[in-house]
Every structure is written in C-alpha cells, then in structure tokens.
C-alpha cells in the first residue's frame, strides 16, 4: 500500500522527470513549441480579456444607469419589461466584466502554475504544456461529439413532431428548427474545433525537428504522461 502510494506520487514526477532524463540534449536546444505557444496566447489573451472586461463593466454600468430612470419614466408595459431586463443584464455585465478582469482563464492559470513551480526544466515545461493542449483538444473533441448527438436527436424530434402536427405555423417552425439542427449536426461532425486544430497544427510542426526529437515526439506526444507515469511506477517497484 505504501509502495502503491509512492507510485501514485511518482506518476506525476515520472511524467516530467523521465522524459527529461531521456533527452540528453542541452536545455537550450530543447524545442519549446507548446510552451512558447502557451506564453504567446496568454500574453495576447490576458490583454484582450482585460480590455473586454473593462468594456463590459463600462457598458453594463451605462445600461444600468439608463435602465433605472427608464423604468420609472416609461408607461409602456413592454418598455418597462425591457428596462427591467436592462437593469438585471447591467448588473450581470458589471459582474461578468469584473470576472474577466480579475479571474484569469484556464491557459493563464496553467501558465501561472508553470512559471511559479520551481525546479522545472524547459523540457518539463514543454511536456506539461503539450499535455495541457492535448487534454484541451480531447475535451473539445468530446464536447463536439456530445453536440453532434444532441443536435441529431433534436433534429429527429423536431422532424417527427412536424410530421405529426396539424398546425401550419408550428409545422413550419419545427421543420426550420429540424433543418438548423441537422446543419449543426453536420457542422459539428465534420469540422474540428479550434482547440483540436490548434493542437494538431503545433503537433505537425514537430516533424520539422531532428530524428531524436521525432522519435521522442512519437512516443510522448499522445501518451507522454502515461509513458512517463508507467516508467516512474516501474522504476519505483
């Protein structure tokens, strides 16, 4: 049990350590594809998120400021409804904008962890960044297939309901919704998400590296953590 616990601890360390040990090249020559990408994207996205966050705060405040007097000055029922919506959306926008400014995104959080962890080599950072993008791509792919199935089911239900209703407006509306859901099913089924494309595009650049790194990429790209973990467990036992 004690050994097993130690093995679990070493799973993470093995994922990092053994790969780095296997690469005998000097630190400066280790390619930094994914970690560079992470750094670039965090830099650009944090500036963008900050800007977008403040824009959302300002616009939310303006909406709130206009909606409060608008509600009390308006006599039209639907205008009052819209101003009420404006008040709520305004408050939500201020909160959301603050969230955008203060709470970093997943990439930024991960980059912060990487940079704040002492003792990591360049190779460690690269492996972890690669793992991060691989997991992100895998999650996006799974989400895409969940969408394919759900839109496909929705399309079937809409077509079935359209075929059985006698109400013209409802039938046309359901046929329209069914068609859009079919389009969405096909779209999500055949088109890779941005996360998948990003991972694959950077992965493709690995082929430009030398034979050693190609071999290493072949072993560790998809299964890097697993190979490292297994190695770690084997060594400990």
């Amino acid at each position, binding site marked *: 049990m004690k050994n097993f616990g130690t093995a679990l601890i070493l799973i993470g360390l093995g994922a990092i350590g053994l790969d780095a040990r296997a690469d005998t090249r000097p630190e400066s020559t280790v390619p930094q594809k994914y970690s560079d990408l992470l750094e670039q994207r965090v830099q650009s996205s944090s500036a963008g998120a900050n800007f977008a966050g403040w*824009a*959302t705060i300002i616009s939310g405040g303006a909406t709130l400021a206009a909606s409060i007097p608008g509600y009390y000055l308006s006599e039209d029922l639907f*205008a009052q409804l*819209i101003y009420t919506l*404006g008040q709520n*959306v305004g408050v939500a*926008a201020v909160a959301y904008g603050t969230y955008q400014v203060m709470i970093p995104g997943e990439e930024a959080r991960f980059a912060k962890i990487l940079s704040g962890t002492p003792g990591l080599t360049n190779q460690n950072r690269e492996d972890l960044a690669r793992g991060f993008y691989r997991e992100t791509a895998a999650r996006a792919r799974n989400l895409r297939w969940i969408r394919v199935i759900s839109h496909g089911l929705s399309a079937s239900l809409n077509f079935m309901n359209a075929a059985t209703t006698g109400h013209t407006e409802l039938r046309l509306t359901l046929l329209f919704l069914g068609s859009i859901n079919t389009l969405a099913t096909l779209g999500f089924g055949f088109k890779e998400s941005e996360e998948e494309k990003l991972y694959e595009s950077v992965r493709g650049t690995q082929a430009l590296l030398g034979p050693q790194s190609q071999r290493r990429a072949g072993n560790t790209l998809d299964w890097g953590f697993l190979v490292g973990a297994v190695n770690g467990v084997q060594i400990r036992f």
Partner: protein
Amino acid sequence: MKNAATIAERSITKIGRAYAAWIVATAVFLSPDQLAHSAPSESAFTAVPSRFQTETLTVGSRGLGEICLGRNFMPDGTVCNPAFLGEQTENTLMGRGFLGNGYTAIVSAHHFLFKTLSRDFLESLFKNQQVTSLEANTGLVFTGRYLSASFSPYRLQYVSEVHNPNFPVVAVHAALERQLEISGGFAPWDARKDWRGGVSLGLKSRVFYRQYVHGSFSLAQVLIDDPNSLLPPQQQRGFSFNPGVAWNSRDLVRRAKFRASLGLKNLGASWPANDLYPENPDIESGVGAEIPLSYGTLIPTLDFVDWFRGDTLLARGRLGLSYRIGMLEPMIGVNARALTLGAQFGISLVQGGIVYEMFRQDFSGRSADNRIATELSIRI
C-alpha cells in the same frame, strides 16, 4: 493537388466575375425608362404605411434608420447583407420577438384577419383614438459562416385611422405575414492586406405568404351593409431574390475598416399581383465604416435605396450610427420618415432592445407621432 486547387480557385473566380457582371447588367437593364410608373403615393390607404414595408423587423434595423447594406453585423449579431456572411465566425441560433406600439390592437388585427366581424366590433373602432397601430414579429434566425436562414411565422401589422369627424370613416390595414429567408455569401477573391481589401458576393432568397385586409368604411356602411363584406381578407404569395456584391477594406487608418455594397432587390414574383404590395425590382447601395475608439467601436452607415422608385433624393437615403461597447450598442437612425433612438444590450443568452421613434410620419401626411418598440431575443 496544387494544380487542382488552382483550377478550383480560378473556377470560383470565374463564377464570381460572372455573378458580379450579371448584377451590373441587371442594374443597367433596370433603367428609369423600364421603371416608368411612379412609386406608390404616400397617402395612407392607397399604400401600405412605410413603417410596414421593411423586410426585416428588428430593433436594430429600426433603431438604425432601416439601414442594411453598408453594415456587416446588425446589433443583435445577425447579418443583413448576405455578401458579408463570410465575415461571420460563429454559428448562432436566435429566437426573437419584436413588439411595436403597444399590444392592445392585436385582438383587433386578428378579428379582421381571421374572425367573423360583428357590427359592435366595427362600431367600436370609431370610438378609438384617432390612430391605432401595432407591429409584432416573432422569428427564428440561424446565422453561420457563408449561410444564414430565418423563419418568421408571425409578423403582424395593424393600423386603423379615423378620418373626418363629421362623417366618420375608418381606414384599416391589417396583415399577417409568414416569411422564410435563406442567404448565402462568400468571398471569391482573397482579401488583400492593403487598402484594396476583398470583394464578396451574396444572395438572399425569400419566400413569403401574407393575409391582409386593406380599405376604409364609414359608420353608415357599418350600419347598413354586411360587416364581413366591407373588408374581405385577401392573400398573396411570392418569392424574391436579392443578389449583392460588397467590398470590404482591411484595417486602414487607425485600424478603421470601410465597406461598400451594391445590390438588387425584389427580383421575383408575387401572386395575385396587387399595387398595395408592388414588390418591384430596384437597386440599393450602402457604405459604412468601423472606427475603433479607446473603448468600443463607432459604426456609421449610409444606405441609398430604391434608386429608381424613391420619391425624392432624401427619401432614398438612410443614415445609421451606433457605438458598440461591451454588451451595449446605443444607436441613432435617420431617414425621410423618422428619427430613431435605441439601444441593444445583452450578455450570454439573453438580449434586449428598445427603440424610440420620433417625428414618425406615415399616415396621410398628418402630424408626426412618437412611438416605442421593444424586442427580446434568446441566443443559443
């Protein structure tokens, strides 16, 4: 593979050129001589009031003075000019409801269109305020890159106007429309990085069905004649195509972008033909810009529509100006009929919008009136 790709690109370019040439040729063919008969009179009840003539009824369109051609995205995120569909980056499905000028007249409109009329109901119209009007629209809109589709199963228009207090006459227009629009757009020429930008093409196709009543009757007629013979409901079906070509600059001075667009409208047919809904072909154009500021973007747009059938030079122009910042887009619009002020706002799923129409002149050249319209939409 490269050769095959090059051949495919050339074919697309050739198709694009032929399409653009066809648009220009049709524009030339539609010369003023061909369109000799004049535009409908503005007298209410010899024509549909201008506020009911817009193809797309949204807060964004109304708040921006009915502009469409010179702008890529409307405030609610939909694409009005199909030639700009290539700029769309995400797929959205939106359900939206628009209500203009109150809701009490909905019952009256449905009465005229679908129910057996009674004398009591018709007499009650003479006791109403001088002008009662209503616009309502519900619809679903899908917008994606290169393709958009919208379906409006319920667009209701109603106005009743009491004339001549000494010998009262009520004029009524009520219509319920269903409309399906499918649009496609693409850019056969790659956008250049410099000021030349890129050229794109688009086509909007529309199928519609409407049921309407239109006419006037006096109080004496209500008392003598069969109420249901006064304004019998009529129906009309039709289709139309609106092809267009657009130019879109790359970032120019201070990251500003410029756009210009030329399009044909109402190439199609409707039956039975009725002067009330002429659906005449014409040319329309628009120019616009997107000017980034410290926070947000200023978007001025000028459309010039109905080149041949517009009443006056002023009646052809439509001006819209909006400022997009975060989740809010306040807007102002001016055209020959109205000055409008509005705003669209929303985060995540929910969007709301409100527009005030000031100095609106639609009915019989009478004094202008002020109106209010609201919209609620859900994005998926």
